């Protein structure tokens, strides 16, 4: 029995990798297996080289491997690129009619997808189902894993006849393997996991969208930009049911200003983009800062500068999001590492944005956005909803109202305009308590005091310390933030057999967490070796750590090729460094 496999499906855009991959993942998870998928695609609609990778396991997993056990090659380029990454006793499935080439090496196995479809007299698009059946057969499965149900759920608009044909094609693929591939060449079946688990399927952007929805987000405006667009798509899919308005703005400048207009109007509002779009939003962030208008901003990173690698991943906008926007004002930046964190931190973002009337960021990246996780459940207990706006009778019974009245904690009541006779006046200029334009030094000082000195310490108290995973008194600490959580966690768990090692992960990075609950700097100082893993070239988090605490890591592991860290790669990097000491 095996405990896990990695299946990679490669081909040109439009060849059905998403279809096959999506169905396989659902089949595996319905059968009780844990899966983790990630996608690697080019910025084009047809052609090119894309792949969809599925890791299937009988224990929880949170990262991708750098090697594979089964490669389904839908074009020749896939073979040329991926063949060297095959595991021992792995298989490469291909149809020589499609690839126009025969391979004699023992890891290659020809499956005549096209011919099988011809024999069955089915539409040739159904050869993808033959391929799917073949993959299942090679991975040691004896059935199609409820393919019929999955397909009818997965493709909402389809007729019974189509489903029956797809099932027929899938079965033919599976039967072909049973007949033609000697049992010794098939992969060993994976040990069955515990039964009766009902898995959730979720990726990072889906979790952010869900987080917005449960936090009472009523308005989302954005300009489409990879890899942030799927947050918008998710909210559109729920708009009617939950009364959310999603508006596609003419540009990102408009997107953030619309969201601020809606927030001023009294509803929870959000926008989302990637680095290039965020560049256009920065004056709006500053506007949120001085007008003290609550807003949540998702920034889903891709590699820059400028257009960079539009469909790939990087963690290179940390400083940009922490410092983007002219002038000085408080903000909060969260960097979730998992869909659970993306959900809970988006919820916390809405909570803090309204409680303190500030911009709050959820910073993610293409890797987290597009990787699909199977989760046993999502915690709803820790989610919170508290309406901080002044409305209803509480507002109408107020005798005197000023939008920026000076208060003990710097937070002024946030009234709904039009809901009472009280006027709500906000200004991008420095203003008095009424919200009207001023220029005198005294009022300016009072307002800066209110926004910055009074609110910031309270906001800082809300920021949770990093998570320590592994040895609690480690010799070696691997620090990371954001989407490198899953891979670093697994790497540290594996290296735990060899070293006293732990992961220190930051998901709430700004304001930098206080040290009174958990003195992570003291812990780092006590460790013998400290590393910082980042998906960028300049080590922005390591720089932030030095800036905020004075602590300097012994070494940095940086990757900036636009691809995420795979587990094998990161294990090699960490172990290689530790061996060299």
């Amino acid at each position, binding site marked *: 029995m095996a405990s896990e496999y990695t299946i990679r499906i490669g081909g040109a855009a439009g060849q059905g990798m998403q279809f096959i991959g999506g169905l396989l993942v659902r089949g595996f998870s319905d059968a009780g297996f844990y899966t983790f998928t990630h996608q690697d695609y080019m910025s084009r609609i047809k052609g090119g080289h894309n792949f969809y990778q599925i890791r299937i396991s009988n224990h929880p997993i949170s990262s991708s491997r750098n090697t594979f056990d089964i490669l389904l090659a839908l074009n020749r380029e896939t073979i040329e690129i991926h063949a060297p990454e095959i595991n021992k006793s792995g298989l490469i499935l291909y149809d020589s009619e499609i690839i126009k080439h025969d391979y004699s090496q023992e890891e290659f196995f020809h499956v005549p997808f096209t011919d099988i479809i011809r024999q069955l007299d089915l539409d040739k698009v159904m050869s993808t189902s033959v391929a799917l059946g073949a993959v299942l057969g090679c991975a040691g499965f004896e059935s199609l894993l409820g393919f019929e149900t999955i397909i009818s759920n997965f493709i909402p608009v389809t007729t019974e006849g189509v489903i029956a044909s797809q099932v027929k094609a899938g079965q033919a693929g599976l039967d072909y393997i049973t007949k033609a591939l000697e049992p010794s060449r098939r992969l060993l079946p994976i040990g069955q996991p515990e039964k009766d688990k009902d898995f959730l399927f979720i990726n990072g952007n889906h979790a952010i969208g869900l987080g917005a*929805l*449960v936090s009472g987000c009523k308005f989302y405006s954005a300009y489409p930009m990879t890899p942030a667009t799927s947050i918008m798509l998710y909210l559109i899919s729920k708009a009617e049911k939950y009364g959310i308005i999603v508006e596609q703005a003419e540009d990102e400048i408009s997107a953030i200003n619309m969201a601020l*207009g809606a927030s001023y109007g*009294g509803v929870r509002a959000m926008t989302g983009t990637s680095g290039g779009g965020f560049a256009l939003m920065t004056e709006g962030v500053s506007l949120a800062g001085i007008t003290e208008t609550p807003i949540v901003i998702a920034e889903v990173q891709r590699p820059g500068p400028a257009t960079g690698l539009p469909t790939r991943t990087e963690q290179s906008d940390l400083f940009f999001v922490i410092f983007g926007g002219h002038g000085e004002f408080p903000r909060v930046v969260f960097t979730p590492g998992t869909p659970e964190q993306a959900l809970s931190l988006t919820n916390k973002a809405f909570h803090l944005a309204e409680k303190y009337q500030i911009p709050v960021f959820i910073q993610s990246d293409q890797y987290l956005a597009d990787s699909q996780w199977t989760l046993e459940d999502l915690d709803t207990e820790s989610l919170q909803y508290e309406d901080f706006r002044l409305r209803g009778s509480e507002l109408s019974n107020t005798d005197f109202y000023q939008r920026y009245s000076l208060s003990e904690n710097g937070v002024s009541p946030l009234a709904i305009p039009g809901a009472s006779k009280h*006027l709500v006046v906000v200004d991008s200029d420095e203003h008095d308590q009424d919200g009207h334009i001023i220029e005198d030094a005294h009022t300016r000082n009072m307002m800066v005091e209110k926004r910055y000195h009074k609110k910031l310490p309270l906001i800082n108290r809300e920021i949770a310390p990093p998570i320590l995973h592994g040895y609690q008194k480690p010799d070696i600490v691997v620090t990371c933030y954001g989407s490198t959580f899953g891979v670093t966690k697994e790497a540290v768990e594996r290296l735990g057999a060899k070293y006293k090692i732990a992961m220190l992960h930051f998901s709430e990075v700004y304001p930098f967490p206080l040290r009174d609950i958990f003195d992570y700097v003291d812990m780092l100082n006590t460790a013998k070796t400290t590393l910082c893993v980042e998906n960028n070239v300049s080590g922005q988090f390591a720089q932030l750590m030095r800036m905020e605490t004075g602590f300097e890591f012994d070494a940095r592991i940086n990757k900036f090729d636009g691809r995420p860290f795979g587990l094998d790669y990161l294990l090699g990097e960490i172990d290689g460094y530790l061996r060299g000491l």
Partner: protein
Amino acid sequence: MVTLEDYKGQEPAWCPGCGNFAILNIIKRALTELEIAPHQLTIVSGIGQGAKMPHYMKCNTFNGLHGRTLPVATGLRMANHDMLVIAIAGDGDCYGEGGNHLLHAIRRNVNVKLFVHNNQIYGLTKGQASPTTTEGTITKTQPFGSLSSQLNPLAMAISLDCGFVARGFAGASGLPFLKEIMKEAIRHKGFALVDILQNCISFNKVNTFHWYKDRTYELPDDHDPYDRISAFQKSLEWGDTIPTGIFYRKDKKSFEEKIPGIKDTPLVLQPFSFSDAKMEISGN
């Protein structure tokens, strides 16, 4: 009853003789006559001398960024379509910096009234050419004369099929007519552009108060604002004579009316059920 006193705000900090004073007064009169109370209205403005106007009144105000009045106004209307939203901007603000937003606000037909203080020059930044500056005008930043042609906002709006396109003049002789235009714009259900010609006493030495006074006239009663072609023809008239009035009208559904979710209740008044929303996770 709503009175002018209800709208009394700070003392304006404009140059003596600025056309803004007249616009401020006439807006207040139009609102008072329509019995609109200050809390039922939000003025969204950007940056420029005209954009300071809401501080010299008393009403709900969002004085945002240069060029960004219309996106804020659009977001606000989507959150609360019971609120009257007037956007106040200058020619630099909404024809220059925010030009893209204007195109799309017209396309959306969001129910926002855009009153443009058009003095054909940048006042706040001290005398540079604006999109409506006459071609060839020499300024500090255009020493060889403004090289770009003058934007015709009315012709542009009519070409985009904007549902309400008008021009007024902020001189004493034009004010009663301007007030009626403003009231009609406020009554119109959809996006309304009112371009208001005003003098800049400090920086525009060409298009002075008298320059406008001598040229502007009211569109005759037989002008049919529902005739797009004749409206477009009229909008091209600029020189010795400059027409004012409602050039073009078209009645069509506003953006807000087309959003199904807010058909019955404004978004801000719709309740949120945290427990129902959490079901989305458990039933995920």
